[in-house]
C-alpha cells in the first residue's frame, strides 16, 4: 500500500508540472514549508524525501531541523555544518565519542546547542565537557549517564554551565559530593537532577543541591547513600514535583515521621525498594505531602497497606504501585476507601491479592485506567468479572501468569473493555474463543499473548482484522500460530513495530514476506523458527528499512545470503542475535560493514573461523557489546581484543554447550511452571 501511495503523489506532482512550467514549489512561502516541516515528525525518512525535492527545500530543511540523532560520528562535522541550528543533539548511538569530537561540536554549534545527550557514549572525558561549557553557553540539558568511570571533574565542568536546567548523571559511580556541590553552586536554574546510582553521593551533596537550586522540579537520588538528614532541605524546595529515591536503604520511617515540613508541590514520589520504610513512614508522607499523585512503594516489603485507612478520604493519590508488598483484602479495602481518586493501581507480585480484594477495589473505583495484577496467581474469573463489570474505561490491563483465569473471563474483557490499549495475557490459559472476543478492543496497541499454547490462527485472524492500531505483538511460543495468522496481522496492522514469534515453529518465510509490508517494523524476533531461511530475512531487510533488532537464533537455515541483504538494506540494524545460524566468514564480514551495529551475539557459528571473526571485529567500528563463545578467546589475538575494547566494546565470553535439539513448548512450559512451584 505504501509504495502505491508514494507513486500517486509523484504522479500528481508531475501533472502539476505539466500545467505550470514554473516549479510549483517556488510558489510556496518559507512559512508554509516550515509548517509542513513541523508536521513531518513521524518518520525520519519523510524529512529526507523533503530535502531531496529541490535546493531550496534542502536548504530549508537544514535550517529547520532542531533535533539530530547521528548514527555514526564519521560525518558529524559535515552534518553539523549543514545543520547549523541544531539545538538538541543525541549522541547515544555513537559509542566512541572523544573529546576532540565534543570540541568540534562545541565550536560548530556553539550558542545554538541547548541539549546534548551523551548517555552511554564512551571515550570522552571532562575536557570535552569543559569545551562544551566554554562555548555552548546556552546549554540547558546534558545527559552523561552510564559513564561508570567519570568522576567529579565532569560534574565540575557541568557546574560551569550557568543556564543548565536538566542534568542526568545516572550511574556515574565516581561522582561524589564535591561534583554534585559544583553543579549545585554553578547551576542556579537547575530543574532536573538525576544522580541515580552515584554511590559516592551523600546527604551533604544532596542537601547543598536543595539549598542552592530552588527551582528544582525533579530529583532522582535512587541507590545513593542518602539518609534522613537531607530530607528536610529537599522538602523545602518550593517547586519539587518529582522525587525518586528507589533503593535508598538509609531512608527509614524516622526520616519522614520526624519531618516537620512536607512538600506541597510534590506530585510523584518513588520509594520502591526502600526496605526500611514501614506503614508509619508512608502515612506520614501522605499527610505531609497533600498533593501527592503518584506513589511507588514497590518492593517495600514491610509496608502494610491497611495503614492507609487512617487517611480517610484526604488523599489525592491517583496512582499507586504496591508491587511485591504485603497486601491483604482488608488492606485493599482501606486503600479503596482512602484513595478516592485512584486511576492507576499496580499489585503485581503481591501474593495476598485475592478475588475478595479485587472485588472491593473494583466496587469503589470505577474509573480505574490502569491495572496491573501480574503474577497474582490466586485471582479467578470472579475478579475478572468484577474488573470488567465496573472498570469499563480500562486502558491498560496486565495480568501475566494469572493461571487460574479461564477463557470465560477473557471473553468478559473483550465484551466490556473496548478502550483497552495495552493487554498482557502472557502465560495464561487463553484459547481461540477468548482471543476472538478480544478483537472487540479496537484500540489495542500492545497485545502480549506469549506462552498461550492453545491459541491458533482462528483466534489471531480476527485480531488482525479489527485492531489496526496494533504496534506490539508478542506471540512467544504461541505454537499454534501459522503463516495464515501472521498474514492477517501483516495486512491489518500497518503500524506494527515489534513482533515476537520466537519458537513459533510453524512460521515460515511466507510470514516474513507478509510482514515486510509493515514498513515500520523495527524489532523482529524469530528465534527457533526452524522453517525460516535467508529468503525470508532478505525480504524483511528489504521491506522493513527501520529494522533495528533482529533475533534469528537457532534459525539454522539462515546463511550468508541473509547477511548480505541485511548489510545492503538495514542501515538501522543495531542488535542481532546469530547463534546457531549457518553464517560463514563472508556473511559476518558483510554484516560488519554496517556502521550502526552495536550489539552482536554469535555463539556456535560453525562456519566462522577465528580469522574471519577477528576481521569482522576490526571492521565493525560501532560495536559496544559482543557475546562470543569462550573457545574463540584463545584463537583471537589478544592485542586485537584489546584494541576493540579500547574502542568501547565489551566482550562477553560465554561458555554454553551446543544444544542439538530443543524441547517442545509444552514441555518447556511445564518445566518452567515446575520451577516456579519449587
Amino acid at each position, binding site marked *: 500500500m505504501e509504495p502505491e501511495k508514494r507513486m500517486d503523489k509523484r504522479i500528481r506532482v508531475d501533472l502539476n508540472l505539466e500545467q505550470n512550467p514554473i516549479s510549483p514549489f517556488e510558489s510556496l512561502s518559507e512559512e508554509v514549508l516550515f509548517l509542513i516541516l513541523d508536521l513531518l515528525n513521524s518518520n525520519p525518512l519523510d524529512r529526507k524525501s523533503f530535502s531531496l525535492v529541490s535546493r531550496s527545500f534542502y536548504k530549508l530543511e537544514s535550517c529547520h531541523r532542531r533535533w539530530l540523532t547521528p548514527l555514526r560520528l564519521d560525518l558529524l562535522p559535515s552534518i553539523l555544518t549543514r545543520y547549523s541550528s541544531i539545538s538538541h543533539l543525541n549522541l547515544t548511538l555513537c559509542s566512541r565519542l572523544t573529546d576532540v569530537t565534543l*570540541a568540534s561540536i562545541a565550536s560548530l554549534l556553539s550558542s545554538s546547542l541547548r541539549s546534548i545527550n551523551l548517555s552511554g557514549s564512551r571515550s570522552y572525558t571532562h575536557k570535552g565537557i569543559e*569545551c562544551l561549557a566554554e562555548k555552548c553557553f546556552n546549554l540547558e540539558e546534558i545527559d552523561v549517564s552510564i559513564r561508570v568511570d567519570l568522576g567529579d571533574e565532569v560534574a565540575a565542568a557541568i557546574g560551569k554551565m550557568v543556564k543548565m536546567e536538566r542534568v542526568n548523571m545516572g550511574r556515574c559511580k565516581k561522582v561524589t559530593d564535591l561534583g554534585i556541590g559544583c553543579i549545585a553552586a554553578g547551576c542556579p536554574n537547575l530543574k532536573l537532577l538525576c544522580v541515580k546510582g552515584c554511590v559516592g553521593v551523600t546527604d551533604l551533596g544532596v542537601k547543598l543541591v536543595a539549598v542552592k537550586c530552588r527551582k528544582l522540579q525533579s530529583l532522582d537520588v535512587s541507590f545513593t547513600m542518602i539518609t534522613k538528614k537531607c530530607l528536610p532541605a529537599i522538602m523545602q524546595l518550593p517547586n519539587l514535583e518529582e522525587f525518586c529515591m528507589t533503593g535508598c536503604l538509609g531512608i527509614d520511617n524516622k526520616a519522614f515521621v520526624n519531618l516537620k515540613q512536607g512538600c506541597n508541590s510534590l506530585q510523584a514520589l518513588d520509594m520502591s525498594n526502600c526496605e526500611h520504610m514501614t506503614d508509619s513512614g508512608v502515612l506520614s508522607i501522605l499527610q505531609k505531602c497533600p498533593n501527592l499523585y503518584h506513589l511507588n512503594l514497590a518492593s517495600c516489603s514491610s509496608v502494610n497497606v491497611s495503614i492507609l485507612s487512617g487517611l480517610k478520604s484526604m488523599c489525592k493519590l491517583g496512582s499507586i504501585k504496591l508491587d511485591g508488598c504485603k497486601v491483604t483484602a482488608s488492606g485493599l479495602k482501606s486503600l479503596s476507601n482512602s484513595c478516592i481518586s485512584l486511576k492507576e493501581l499496580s499489585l503485581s507480585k503481591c501474593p495476598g491479592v485475592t478475588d475478595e480484594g479485587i472485588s472491593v477495589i473494583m466496587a469503589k473505583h470505577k474509573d480505574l485506567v490502569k491495572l496491573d495484577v501480574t503474577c497474582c496467581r490466586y485471582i479467578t474469573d470472579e475478579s475478572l468479572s468484577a474488573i470488567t463489570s465496573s472498570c469499563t474505561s480500562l486502558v491498560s490491563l496486565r495480568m501475566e501468569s494469572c493461571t487460574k483465569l479461564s477463557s470465560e473471563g477473557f471473553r468478559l474483557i473483550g465484551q466490556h473493555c473496548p478502550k483497552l490499549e495495552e493487554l498482557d495475557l502472557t502465560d495464561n490459559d487463553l484459547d481461540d474463543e477468548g482471543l476472538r472476543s478480544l478483537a472487540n478492543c479496537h484500540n489495542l496497541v500492545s497485545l502480549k499473548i506469549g506462552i498461550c499454547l492453545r491459541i491458533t490462527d482462528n483466534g489471531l485472524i480476527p485480531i488482525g482484522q479489527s485492531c489496526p492500531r496494533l504496534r506490539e505483538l508478542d506471540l512467544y511460543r504461541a505454537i499454534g500460530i501459522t503463516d495464515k495468522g501472521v498474514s492477517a496481522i501483516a495486512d491489518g496492522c500497518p503500524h506494527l513495530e515489534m513482533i515476537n514469534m520466537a519458537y513459533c515453529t510453524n512460521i515460515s518465510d511466507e510470514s516474513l514476506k507478509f510482514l515486510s509490508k509493515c514498513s515500520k517494523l523495527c524489532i523482529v524476533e524469530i528465534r527457533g523458527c526452524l522453517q525460516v531461511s535467508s529468503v525470508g530475512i532478505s525480504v524483511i531487510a528489504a521491506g522493513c528499512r527501520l529494522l533495528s533488532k533482529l533475533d534469528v537464533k537457532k534459525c539454522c537455515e539462515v546463511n550468508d545470503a541473509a547477511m548480505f541483504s541485511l548489510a545492503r538494506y538495514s542501515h538501522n540494524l543495531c542488535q542481532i542475535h546469530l547463534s546457531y545460524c549457518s553464517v560463514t566468514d563472508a556473511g559476518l564480514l558483510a554484516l560488519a560493514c554496517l556502521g550502526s551495529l552495536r550489539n552482536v551475539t554469535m555463539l556456535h557459528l560453525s562456519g566462522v573461523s577465528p580469522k574471519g571473526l577477528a576481521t569482522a571485529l576490526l571492521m565493525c567500528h560501532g560495536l559496544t557489546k559482543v557475546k562470543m563463545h569462550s573457545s574463540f578467546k584463545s584463537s583471537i589475538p589478544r592485542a586485537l581484543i584489546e584494541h576493540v575494547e579500547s574502542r568501547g566494546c565489551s566482550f562477553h565470553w560465554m561458555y554454553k554447550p551446543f544444544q542439538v535439539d530443543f524441547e517442545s513448548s509444552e514441555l518447556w512450559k511445564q518445566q518452567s511452571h515446575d520451577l516456579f512451584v519449587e
Partner: protein
Amino acid sequence: MKQIIGEPGIDLSSDSKMDLKLTRNSESFHKPNSSNHNLNSFNQASQYFPNLSPTNFLSRAENLQQNLKTKSTNSFEPNLNSGMATQNPPLDWDPHAMLSNLSFLEQKIHEVQSLVQSIIDQQAEFSSRPSELATRQQLATADLTCIIIQLISTAGSLLPSIKNTLLSNNPALRQLVNPDFNNNLKCEGLIRNFPETARNSEYEDLLRNLDNEADWMKEPNPPLQSDIVDANPIDEHDLKESDDGDAEREHLPPGSYIVLQLEKEEILAPHTHFCVICGKGFKRDANLRMHMRGHGDEYKTPAALAKPSKEPGSDVHPVTRYSCPFAGCKRNKEHKKFQPLKTILCVKNHYKRSHCDKSYTCSRCHAKKFSVIADLKTHEKHCGRDKWQCSCGTTFSRKDKLFGHVALFQGHTPALPMDEVKASGSGQGNDDMTEDLGGYNGNFASEECLTSMDVKGIDESRAYFSPMNFDGFGALDEFGRGGFDLEDNPFAFIPSGFSQRSGDS
C-alpha cells in the same frame, strides 16, 4: 576593710605591723582563701615579674611571716606549719644570693625615698598640676610593690622547705598583685607603710647589697594594676541572691564578681614561676617543684612536692573574672557589652590572639599565622590535611564545613582536590588527547583546524585548574578572617571562622 580585719582565723597582733598590713591587704582583696584554681590564675597573672613566681612569691611571703613569727612574740593562729618551720635549720639558704637581693632592695628603697621626698618638696607645684602628682604617686606605688615582692621573696628563701603548706594556708601576697590604685587612700597607705616595713630593724641587714635585676623595674607604668568593680566587699549571700537577669554568657550578673585587669606586660611574660635559688623561670609550678629537687633534699619531701592544696574551710570566695587591658575590646571592662574572661589563661590567650602580632607562621603552608604557639601546633597537626577546599581558596578539615560554607555564599563552589586534578588534568589526560589526534583517521573534514582547536582546549582547561589554588590564598582576607572575634572561646582554635562569623558580626 574593718570587717575583714575582724575576721576569724587571723590573729591581729600589734607587734608585727608588717604582718598586719599583709594580712589586711590580702583579706581585703581576696576575701575567700584561694582555691587551687584561683591560685593558678594568680600565678599566671603575676608573670610580669620575670624573676618572681607568684607561687614562690606567696611562699616567700609565708616564709617571711614564719620568720617573723620565730623572731617576734607574735604568732598566727595555731598552725600546722609553725612546727615545721621551727624544725628547719635557720641557715638553709644561699647567703650570696640573699645578699645580692638585699642590696637590690636597699637601692630600691632609696629610690622610693627620694621619690616621696620630691613629692613632699614639690607639693605646692603639684597642687596646680594634679596629673603629675598622680604620676609620681603611681611611680612610688610601683616601686614599693616591687620592694615588697623582692623582700618577701628574699625572706622566703630562708625557709624554703615549708613553702607549700604555708602557701596554701596564707594567700598573703594577693593584695600586692592587685592593689586598688583607684583608691587613693589605699595608695597612700601603702606608701606610708611600706617604708616602715622595710625599715623594720629585723630586716635592715638584709638590704645591704644591690641586685642587678633592677632593669625590669624601670617601667614607667605601674607594673600591677587591678580593680575591684564593687568597692564594698560582697556578701556571699548577696552574691547568690543577685540575679537581676542581665546575665552574661556564663550567667553572671555584672557586679556579682570581681574584675581583675592585668597589664599587657604581665600577660605577655613568658614565665610565671621562678626558682628562688637560681632564678630560672617556669610556666608551671609543678615544673618548678620538680626543678627545686635539684637544690637540695629538703625540696624532695612529699610536702614540698605536693601540689598546693586548697585550705579547708575557705571554699567560699567571690567569683573572679578578668578584663582585657586593651581599650575598646569587648573583653575590656569599659566596653558596653563587657564579657569578662574566666581565667588568667583565657586572658593570656585572648590578648595574644586578638591584640598581638601573629608571629608564628606555619612551616608547612607558610600561610597561616598565629600568635599563640599552641594554636600553631594544633594547626600544624592538621595542616595539609585540610583537603576540603573552596574555590575561594579557603580550606576545611571537614567536608560538612566546606559544604556549609558553599551553601552560605553565592558564587563559591567546592574545589576538586589538587592531586586529582593534576593527575587527570595534565598527565594522563594530555596523553589521551594526543593519542586521539593521532589515531583519528579522517573523521573530520579538516583535522588541522580541529587539532589547533583541541590544543587550545587543553591549555585552557589546564589554565583553569592550576592557578586556582594560588589565587585562592590571596582571596582569603576578603572574608575578613582577621576581623573575627575569637574571644568568645579563647581555647578553641578555629581554623576558619566562617561558621562563627554570622554570630559575632
